[in-house]
């Protein structure tokens, strides 16, 4: 039994891991070796050429910059709006709490595509079309329900007594929040912020529909997909995968909270 378990685990790890290895290998091979057949499965001719050609292609560096700007603004905006709401969910038993929570869960069932096309029209009328602000607004809307649910779970884990003690000793509610609650909740908030960033980094459909020139990196890759050489596509694949590897390594502890339990 034990041996079978080990073998099964190894097989699944091979299935999950091999494609990651191969895309890295492809993106780090020179253009010339990618034209050979059969391709070598071992890193025999590593080169930064394919990656650097990709990064120098039109729109890629700009796209990278737009993706970063939009990702960071989405994190900031969703925390600004989401943290107070998450705090309220954790600390107050207020009227309308259940319908509010239900509404948060329901918005997750709304396909992005249903929002994107009408939003493009609305943004055209309001001057937000083809701006990083417009995409930030869409991504914040997508991330906000999760941010609220995760942060409320995090605030529930911070002792209420300590917060009240601070207030008894004369701290204002805001000071008690900033100096007692925030430090304890910080790791969880950071994980939630990274979740939001990755969501924004990965979202391609809405970003494609809401922009024309200020494309994000995935939107730029998608738009030029049909006319670009294979080497470009492999490099694009790796560029999109790398943040995922880092994010999962850093936020592993919080995964079950983010994708597991809060989904209920």
């Amino acid at each position, binding site marked *: 039994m034990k041996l079978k378990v080990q073998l099964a685990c190894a097989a699944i790890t091979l299935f999950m891991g091999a494609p990651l290895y191969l895309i890295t290998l492809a993106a780090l091979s020179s253009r010339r070796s990618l*034209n050979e057949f059969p391709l070598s499965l071992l890193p025999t001719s590593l080169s930064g050429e394919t990656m650097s050609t990709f990064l120098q292609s039109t729109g890629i560096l700009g796209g990278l910059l737009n993706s970063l700007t939009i990702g960071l603004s989405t994190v900031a905006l969703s925390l600004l709006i989401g943290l107070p709401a998450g705090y309220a969910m954790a600390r107050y038993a207020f009227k309308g709490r259940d319908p509010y929570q239900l509404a948060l869960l329901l918005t997750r069932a709304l*396909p992005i595509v249903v929002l*994107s096309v009408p939003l493009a029209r609305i943004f055209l009328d309001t001057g937000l079309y083809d701006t990083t602000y417009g995409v930030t607004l869409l991504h914040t809307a997508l991330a906000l329900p999760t941010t609220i649910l995760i942060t409320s779970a995090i605030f529930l884990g911070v002792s209420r007594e300590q917060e009240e003690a601070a207030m008894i000793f004369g701290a204002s509610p805001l000071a008690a929040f900033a100096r007692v609650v925030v430090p304890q909740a910080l790791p969880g908030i950071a994980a939630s912020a990274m979740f939001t960033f990755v969501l924004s980094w*990965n979202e391609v459909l809405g970003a494609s529909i809401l922009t024309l020139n200020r494309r994000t990196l*995935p939107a730029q890759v998608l738009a030029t997909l049909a006319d670009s050489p294979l080497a470009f596509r492999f490099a694009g694949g790796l560029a999109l995968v790398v943040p995922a590897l880092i994010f999962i390594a850093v936020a592993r502890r919080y995964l*079950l909270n983010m994708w597991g339990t809060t989904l*209920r």
Partner: protein
Amino acid sequence: MRQTRPALLLIAPSIIFMAALFLWPLIAGVTQAFHGPDGPTTQYVRRMADDPYFWEALRNTALLIVVLIPLQFALAIVMALLMRERPRFAGLHFYIWVVPLAISDLAAGLVWLSIFTDRGYLNSVLDGLGIPTYSWLSFEHPQTMFLAVVVAELWRATSLVFVIVIAGLQGVPRDYDEAASVFGATYWQRVRHVILPQLRPSLQVALILRTILALEAFAVAQALTGRNFPLLVGETYQWYYQLQNPNVATAIALVVLALSIVAAVGYLRLMRP
């Protein structure tokens, strides 16, 4: 209740924001799909239905869900049960298994393109073994094209189900399992009669979520096959971008929404205890 006022102040910004970005576009979308220059119209819906690509996309999307989701759930449950056995190198396995959580469907398509493309890694391996190579993604071979999309989606999105099932398993006390084993239940009997029934709520959530997300898949097929394997959301993108017709694009988007709602309600009814 006493504490309603401060709480409402704290949640008010989120309510305003979500109304502006969910409710407003939703209403605008319905208007866009059913309202032409001269009042209410069904012309956009008819144009959508007259397009052969639409029906192909609908068929492909349905086929993808029907084939992918059972495979994905079987694999995810096996993965979760394996983790429960506390294998060696559990940390490393877990990391590799959950990495796809943060990978987009466009990236997944590009990753698997390096494997399935004509001069890619799969054919390189076949060639090395002396087996003739095959054009997996050619439009002349719709079966393997579909297979490639299924494998890429299985790779990318199984980890979401896995994480939900793992979280659910943590709520299943080991004592039940041990008690059943003391009374002589085999491993499969325990899985079937002790563990799976308790996982029901997690599986239900995962099923709803995965089906809705599978309805939204498109970039993976776009990266692997271009428009040779159209999916519903990919068609919205086509109508919006290539054909410059946002009205038809919204009509298709509303079909996706309707299917999502039907799927969610259907599962909730089907799996009611």
